[in-house]
């Protein structure tokens, strides 16, 4: 089982991801408050985290950098409405496993998740 987490302050976008993954093989969690990430009991079970770039209080790249430092084994995916800008503003020490445009389609999302979970299978 591949546990994934979506972080986005926008409830409508999270509900869209939920709909897109209905019936898929992924066990998905959804979080609207990025600051609450560290209190989640499922945190250590996650294999992939997908974070929106523009959120109140913290950007997706800042959050993913913290995640990289505390839980380096979790794959990191940035989702942004302006990927070009977001990537030029990346901290040099942050390594992303993938980046997706916002909004992203079900096909693009599943393709990304399959690729990343396949990499996990291949390396474990």
């Amino acid at each position, binding site marked *: 089982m591949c546990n994934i987490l979506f972080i986005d302050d926008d409830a409508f976008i999270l509900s869209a991801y939920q709909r*897109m993954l209905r019936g898929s093989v992924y066990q998905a969690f959804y979080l609207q408050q990025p600051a609450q990430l560290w209190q989640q009991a499922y945190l250590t079970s996650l294999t992939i985290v997908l974070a929106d770039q523009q959120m109140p209080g913290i950007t997706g790249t800042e959050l993913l950098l913290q995640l990289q430092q505390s839980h380096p084994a979790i794959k990191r995916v940035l989702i942004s409405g302006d990927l070009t800008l977001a990537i030029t503003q990346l901290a040099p020490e942050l390594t992303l496993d993938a980046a997706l445009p916002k909004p992203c389609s079900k096909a693009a999302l599943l393709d990304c998740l399959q690729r990343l979970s396949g990499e996990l299978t291949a390396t474990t």
Partner: protein
Amino acid sequence: MADAATLPVLDLNVLIAMYGDDSAETITLALSGFRREATHYVQQLQNAGQHNIRTDSARKDHAPTDTALADMARLCHSLKSMCGLVGAAKLMQLCMTLEQAARQQDLTTLQNELLKLAEVWPELLSQLNLTLLQHGYPDV
């Protein structure tokens, strides 16, 4: 940038492609959720326009703060993504223009484009209600 006048108000083909599903259940779930959330965002944008983004002589001493413009850019950015999910192309285009104007602190463009919101949003709302009704959504 596309001419807003030629863009569809609501293109269900986009929604179906994004969600990978053409069922009435998914269409009504997506459109009703969008209608609820977008109404909230549009109200916030209209309020911001009335209170902060005025370039007329009565408000020359009350230029919008950087925070107000940043908030407006953030609202437009979020609404733009929501529009992209359901195929609300005309409002998406307007949000792109508004977001850019807010980031560049171009108050004249911002004020002019906010006036268009008063035309684009009711047109979209009407189309949303009609489409929901056509797909059997009871609460229109």
